[in-house]
């Protein structure tokens, strides 16, 4: 990439992810408050970063109305107590919102417009169900620009199974079970907790509580159990609630900086941005998106897939991870892939997930100084993929 300055990932945190709905952790918690908590924790964890040195706050949300509206990057910055001189904005690329927040500020840092930025995302899918307030242009269908299934993510996953006939429901379920097991182990090993910020949860009828762990993981999930689940998107289909991510609430954030500024301020860079790419695919098979975006990012970096030692790939659906792995000739259970598990267990609050991938990759890097390169990648609704390649600085 034609970078004038190197861009580094300094630190990332997130709220525990909750299950959406009236019983969920954050049923009565505002989305902007989740972002505020993340921003404040980043500032607290990085005391060498003077608040007035934050040059931008880019926060993604898919549904930018209500408590996710009002230019959430700016409003959350003010609510978090950052100096009023710190600007902010809202950003949207659906599931890749936080990822795009990072790449956008990274571009600005590289160009020299910023020294340090906070990037992240939030999605409170309980308060803002997927598709809230959308008004698709009738031309999409009348001119057959996209297939009718393109806006229903579960259907696009079924379509992906069609495209990759070798990816069976059993393979998808096995991958899902493994994801649950890896998350349970990562929790048991204390890999997840350090980057979670305990977050207050108040419900009028129950009083105050505190979220300290993710709500969605189902340790002990078995193949038999998954086999019994319905396939809501297609009769006798393959996609179930068990081999897909859930409907979740949560926020993420990270500090991104010019490498030279990070060192000057005494911040600890953990990953260096090598390249990034986004790519478009047919919206009705949006899950295939990470393949072209990764190919492009590798090409930009002058790397091959064999150079990548760790993969953080968002598990919107098991099939979409498996399609990626099959394409690149990687085994379903390759230990380089999602070593701490993924969204099938953690959950996937749409626009927030990109930074979760980065935060986990950074922690994995710290344990594996022998690994030089890793990628974070995810599929995106309306037919896109996004990939960021990182270099380990541990």
């Amino acid at each position: 990439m034609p970078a004038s300055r190197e861009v580094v990932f300094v630190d990332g945190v997130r709220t525990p992810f909750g299950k959406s709905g009236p019983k969920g952790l954050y049923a009565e918690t505002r989305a902007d408050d989740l972002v505020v908590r993340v921003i404040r924790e980043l500032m607290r964890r990085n005391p060498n970063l003077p608040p007035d040195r934050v040059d931008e706050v880019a926060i993604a949300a898919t549904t930018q109305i209500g408590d996710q509206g009002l230019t959430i990057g700016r409003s959350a910055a003010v609510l978090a107590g950052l100096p009023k001189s710190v600007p902010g904005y809202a950003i949207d690329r659906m599931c890749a919102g936080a990822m795009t927040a990072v790449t956008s500020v990274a571009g600005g840092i590289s160009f020299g417009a910023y020294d340090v930025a906070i990037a992240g995302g939030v999605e409170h899918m309980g308060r803002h169900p997927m598709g809230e307030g959308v008004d698709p242009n009738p031309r999409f269908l009348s001119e057959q620009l996209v297939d009718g299934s393109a806006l229903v993510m579960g259907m696009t996953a079924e379509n992906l199974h069609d495209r990759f006939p070798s990816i069976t429901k059993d393979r998808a379920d096995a991958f899902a079970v493994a994801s649950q097991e890896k998350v349970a182990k990562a929790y048991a090993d204390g890999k997840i907790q350090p980057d979670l910020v305990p977050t207050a949860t108040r419900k009028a009828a129950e009083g105050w509580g505190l979220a300290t762990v993710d709500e969605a993981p189902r340790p002990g999930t078995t193949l038999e159990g998954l086999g019994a689940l319905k396939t809501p998107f297609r009769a006798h289909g393959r996609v179930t609630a068990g081999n897909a991510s859930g409907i979740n609430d949560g926020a993420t954030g990270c500090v991104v900086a010019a490498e030279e500024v990070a060192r000057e301020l005494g911040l600890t860079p953990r990953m260096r941005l090598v390249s990034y790419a986004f790519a478009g695919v047919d919206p009705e098979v949006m899950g295939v998106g990470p393949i072209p975006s990764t190919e492009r990012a590798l090409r930009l970096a002058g790397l091959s897939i064999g150079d990548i030692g760790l993969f953080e790939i968002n598990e919107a659906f098991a099939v979409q991870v498996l399609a990626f792995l099959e394409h690149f000739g990687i085994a379903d259970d390759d230990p380089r892939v999602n070593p701490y598990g993924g969204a099938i267990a953690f959950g996937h609050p749409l626009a927030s997930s990109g930074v979760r991938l980065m935060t986990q990759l950074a922690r994995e890097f710290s344990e594996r100084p022998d690994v030089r390169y890793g990628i974070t990648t995810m599929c995106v609704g309306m037919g896109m993929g996004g990939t960021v390649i990182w270099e380990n600085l541990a």
Partner: protein
Amino acid sequence: MSDVEQWKSLLAGKNADEVVTDALVRDVDLPYGAGTMALITLDNGFDHTKPNTFGPLGLLALDEALDGIAGRTDVVAVGVTGKPFIFGVGADLKGAVAVTSHEEAAAIGALGHHVFRRLGELGVPSFAFVNGAAMGGGLEIALHCVYRTVSSGMPAIALPECFLGLVPGWGGTQLLPRLIGPEKAIKLIIENPLSQNRMIKGRDAFELGVADAMFEPADFLEESLRWAAQVLRGEITVRRAPHTDADWTPVIDQARTLVDLKLRGASPAPYRALDLIALARTASRDEGFAAEDEALADLLMGDELRAGLYAFDLVQRRAKRPAGAPDRALARKVTKVGVVGAGLMASQLALLFARRLEVPVVLTDLDQDRLDKGVGYVHAEVGKLLAKGRISGDQANRLKALVTGSLTKDAFADADFVIEAVFEDLKVKQQVFAEVEAVVSETCVLATNTSSLSITEMASGLRHPERVVGFHFFNPVAVLPLLEIVRGSATDDATLATAFSVAKSLKKSSVLVKDAPAFVVNRLLTRFMGEVIAAADEGTPLETADHALDGLGLPMTPFALLQLVGPAVALHVAETMHAAFPDRYGVSANLARLVAAGKPGVYGADFQIDPEVRALFEGGTRPSTGDEVRLRALRALAQEIRLMLDEGVVSAAEDIDLCMILGAGWPFHTGGVTPYLDRTGISEEVTGGRFLAPGVASVPAA
């Protein structure tokens, strides 16, 4: 029957509409693996506009929650916090009003202690996370906990009990002095309540040592829980300043002197509070809490407290919904204000209108120098506000631009509200209004700040007398919260509604008054002062006369008030009142001589009686004792109030009391004035009956 059962049955049904503050318990996994905390949320189910309070049912709800927690072995700590913006604001006052026996009163204290003290006597540490307003019993809950955190954004922490006539007797007088030392405790328990019920902010509470840690409001609870986890893990040690016995005696003596100076024994509560604070030096918890129970019961059964609760209710409720005010929908919009005159009063009014209404304000005067001086005064005051950081530079620019001066009244052409503050002379004021009427619209309100002239007469020569209204401020305009709004015989509802609406925007409490000489406050104070001066005229030593009413704990003695008002103004008002009611209002020849001599009052610069003034007053041959002066003044007040109510000057005795509290600063424990006259038997003796039914501002019959 257990104690709790006994209290329960005693208090059952006493306040059927108690808004019950619930104690919701949730388990919280503390950070750093510190274990499980049982976190209690105090929440009455309403938003912050209806704060958490504690009546018997609320106390029992907390008791039950603590029962549940006490039976557990898996919790390492207990936490207490509030609903958003509110921790707790203390006892349910409605319940307190309903108490009719010493036994019930004692039960309220005992039940509170029984429940709250458990927080300090659990087997595990307790933490209060004071997230929002914490007053009285709310703050005492926090004090019973072993540790406290406070939000730096919190605006109101107080122990206002002494302000009302109570003591913080659910542990406050015993726990606070030991926590932060007697000197600071006295500040919170006695000094602040007696200084217009001052509140402190979260930051002050932290600095005083009331809280052990402070966190910002954005993530107050989360960071408090982290801190608690670190305390539990021994990573943070809480240090508090030690207090020695030597801290106690001198500050208590000093405080007693201060209280005496302010109250002269008029209200028992601060004295009881001082005794309890003194006791806290040596008393065990049991002894201390028992003494608090006793004090609470005595005070709850005293008329001073009941008058205090009555006064509080007047100020909180009646002042916000003035009796007799017309439908506020009738009020016209005020987008520009005119002030006739550019003297000190006019300038003060201009500043107030500009600040509160944020609309253009034009001062007019015939003299350019006076005008420049008036506008200059406002600009200088705005500058002071800016220097103090009370307003921003932009706001200062805005306010300065809003206030201008004009030599002609043309500038009022588009004004919606014109107030005159010229010399107190009917002819002059009539002339001024006629000139204003020539330029303003037909609906522009013409308000007068007269303190004694007739609104009806002032309006009589106008084409539209219906738009004239009395708008009587009290000096200093920016400080005293009362406005007497006077309806003339022609004043219409739209004008009156506009006046009330403007008053509200000015953040004043208003009372509707009939067009009668001197309205309420000045009529009563002049009558009262007239009796004291008459006694002096008759030969009562000036000191005796002036201190005869010390027992009421008034904000100042009659002669101090005379000094503040100025003898010339007092004489003028006395003459006006004498003209209206020659039988009851005299004009003291000595006062006239005092004015002629150019004296500022009876006191000299050294706060001693001026010997020349003493000489002026010599020659009286029928001196009275202090007691006689007191009775004479109070009887005069009772008579005058009865007459005012019969004349319909205000709609009820409550309005008289509200006026005396807000306009004359008469203390809560007198309930304004009528509760005091009722409880001392003077109303009955002079008028043949009470002003208020028993129980309204006094202990009801059992």
